[in-house]
């Protein structure tokens, strides 16, 4: 360190004279942090550090894959099994019926709209779909002023009291049996 010439510091003279020693200038370089501040800094670091450790443990790996959510949720949501089989599934065995249907007014209908949920039937043909009743026709074709004008509607009690299928073929509605 910077020793003053002569091996004596000018301050030793002050000690010898019994006066209060003045803090030497060079000891300022060995500044000691007050212990309460050290404790505060360590505590802050511990709290912030434990937050990051806890975050690393608790956040799922896929969080933030696409955005601020769990990317794995997309896989979980699409892993459910569909209930309705869909028209393609019917087409695998009943393509003849679907081709006939495509020539008539009911071409826009899905099979399961009338025949009911048929997934079990599609997987195992021995399980038959739900049996039909005339209420399926009325559900759509009963007259209602809110229904669009282009849509064929009847007032059931004025129309006929028997079965719909006596006069109409469901798959070819404009034809009589």
């Amino acid at each position, binding site marked *: 360190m910077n020793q003053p010439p002569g091996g004596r510091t000018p301050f030793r003279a002050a000690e010898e004279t019994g006066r209060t020693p003045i803090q030497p200038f060079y000891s300022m370089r060995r500044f000691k942090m007050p212990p309460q501040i050290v404790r505060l800094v360590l505590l802050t670091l511990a709290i912030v550090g434990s937050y990051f450790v806890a975050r690393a443990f608790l956040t799922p790996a896929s969080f933030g894959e696409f955005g601020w959510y769990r990317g794995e949720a997309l896989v*979980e949501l*699409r892993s459910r*099994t569909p*209930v309705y089989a869909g028209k393609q599934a019917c087409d695998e065995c009943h393509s003849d019926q679907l081709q006939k249907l495509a020539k008539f007014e009911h071409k826009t209908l899905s099979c*399961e*709209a009338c025949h009911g949920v048929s997934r079990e039937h599609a997987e195992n043909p021995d399980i038959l779909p739900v049996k039909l009743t005339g209420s399926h026709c009325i559900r759509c074709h009963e007259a209602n*002023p*809110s*229904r669009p004008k282009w849509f064929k509607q009847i007032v059931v009690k004025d129309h006929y009291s028997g079965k719909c299928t006596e006069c109409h073929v469901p798959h070819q509605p404009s034809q009589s049996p």
Partner: protein
Amino acid sequence: MKTQYSRRNVLTRLGGAIAGLLTLSTARAVKAAVQKVFVSSGAPKDYDTTKHKWLMCIDVNRCIGCGLCVEACKKENSVPEGPYFRTWIERYIIPKPEPGSGQTRGETLVDSPNGGMHGFPPSPVPKDQIEHSFFVPKLCNLCEHSPCVQVCPVGATFDAPDGAVLIDPKYCIGCGFCIQACPYGCRFLSPVTHTAEKCTLCYHRITRGLKPACAEICPTQARIFGDLKNAGPDDPIRKFYENNRVSVLKPHLGTEPRVLYAGLDKEVR
């Protein structure tokens, strides 16, 4: 008993605690890996979320209010019994104005008994007094800027890259903020799971190449479902755009929905 704080004692306990933490985290990782394999086994493998943009087009002039879509949605998604719907149908009845009232039209009536699932009762307004009447199917509007996503405090609801607005049922805490934020009333708190639920566009169906249950079952093709990123010139959604002038619900909110309506009236909110 006085605890002995010997060096050996403290070090042993510390070592035990660290070992326990490490085992716990390993167990968690193993559990997550097993769950991932188990869950993804049923999910379609060849689906890339970033290569699709789903949308739904609804032609109000084609809806006959049969309620088959509402029923199909309930069955497909195990929606709880009672007044809980992921999709529903509203009936609008606009009567003729009172003579000499100076109004263009009468007071609009809107109803949706049981979501329209079992059809609609006869009109409360006699047929000759109705100016306009029509059915409007409603569902999640697939907003580009979803208010529901913005308010979720836990990152449980999100815009998927393919345009579906979805809920992570494991993350949802059931606070109900999103239910209040949705301007279209498309969300509800499930009484079964106590989490928010909504239309997922039948995410398990569309990722398998099927249509959503409502679009599949609609007898008049009032609901047209499509993929904006993979729509050819003959795609039904292109035809829908060509043949109709389209609008969205509540455009003033700036949510930019991807559910497009044709034939809407100004009374429809």
